């Protein structure tokens, strides 16, 4: 990848993350347009495979950007694409953190926090039901989901064991 293209990609990503309110999935379509359609840097199949692979890895789900950077330009690409996420995010969050710290009882921040709480909770329920429906293919999948929820709420088992059970059930073709 040419140096000019890499710089352009970095600046474009930086701008995208600055407006990415609502999480990494909101700007995914724009990444697709930029990388696959407009500049032909990745094929459609590569784009989907890299995204899926990043989702499967432990850690935050913006790592798809890191992985695509690595595919395009090795360690430099991975580092630049990660910095494009970190720089704007940390700047805005630290600004808000400072404001919150120096005026802990500011009405405006409290109204925002209290006001957004119901939306956040509603969206959490929405994400979990969408995900459960998307990854379940038969009644045994739903049973596994139900048992997982019951185990988390009723027992103190380490949830990593539940993930291991899920992996095993998947390998055996049960779910």
């Amino acid at each position, binding site marked *: 990848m040419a140096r000019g293209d890499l710089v352009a990609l970095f600046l474009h990503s930086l701008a995208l993350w600055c407006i990415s309110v609502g999480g990494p999935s*909101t700007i995914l379509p724009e990444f697709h347009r930029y990388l696959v359609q407009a500049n032909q840097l990745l094929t459609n199949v590569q784009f989907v495979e890299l995204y899926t692979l990043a989702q499967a890895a432990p850690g935050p789900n913006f790592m798809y950007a890191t992985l695509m950077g690595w595919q395009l330009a090795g360690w430099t690409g991975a580092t630049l694409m990660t910095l494009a996420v970190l720089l704007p995010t940390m700047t805005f969050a630290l600004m808000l953190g400072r404001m919150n710290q120096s005026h802990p009882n500011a009405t405006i921040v409290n109204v925002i*926090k209290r006001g957004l709480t119901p939306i956040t909770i509603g969206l959490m329920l929405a994400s979990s039901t969408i995900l459960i429906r998307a990854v379940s293919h038969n009644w045994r999948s739903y049973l596994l989901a139900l048992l997982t929820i019951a185990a988390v709420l009723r027992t103190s088992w380490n949830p990593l064991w539940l993930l291991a059970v899920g992996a095993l059930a998947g390998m055996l073709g*049960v779910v």
Partner: protein
Amino acid sequence: MSSVLSKVKLRPMNQTEVHVARLSPYQLFLTFLRITTSGFGGAMFWARRQLVEKERWLTDREFVEYLSLGQLLPGPPGLNLTVLVGYRFGGWAGALTAVVGFVGLPFLVVIGMGALYQHYGAQPMVQRALAGMSIVAAALLFATFARVVKVLPRRWQPLLIAALAFVAVGVLRWPLIWVIGTLAPLAFLAAWKERL
């Protein structure tokens, strides 16, 4: 399911409002490293488990509030939560080490996976295991919802706003940006009226 939920709601609130004032950057680094390394399929469940249940740095209410701010700010909500919590308990150094803990190892892991993938391609066995794990990961997110839903005030406005957000995004699948753009002003208005 409803019986499980109602039991959770009835559980008495036994958390005090503030647990700790300040933490070392190293503690913050370690905790966010723990959150991120167990965070298959989303860090939300593990962040709550570590910050609210294990370390008791935050109450459920504070956790949801930080999460809400994290969703409002640009950038990944999980990363925003990391910066906000790191800064609150450890200042600039705490924010920085929390982010390094949260992002450092996954950065290396995802590149390692990319390299393996290029050499060996996708193994069907691995893909089936990942499919099974993603069902459990989705269920863990639901369990997190079941835990934090009790911080909703028992008034009709917040309950209605939560229900509308769920139906619009979860059932009707409307774009998130429009849903938040419409509901947030209403939610702010409701919170403004209730501020005393």
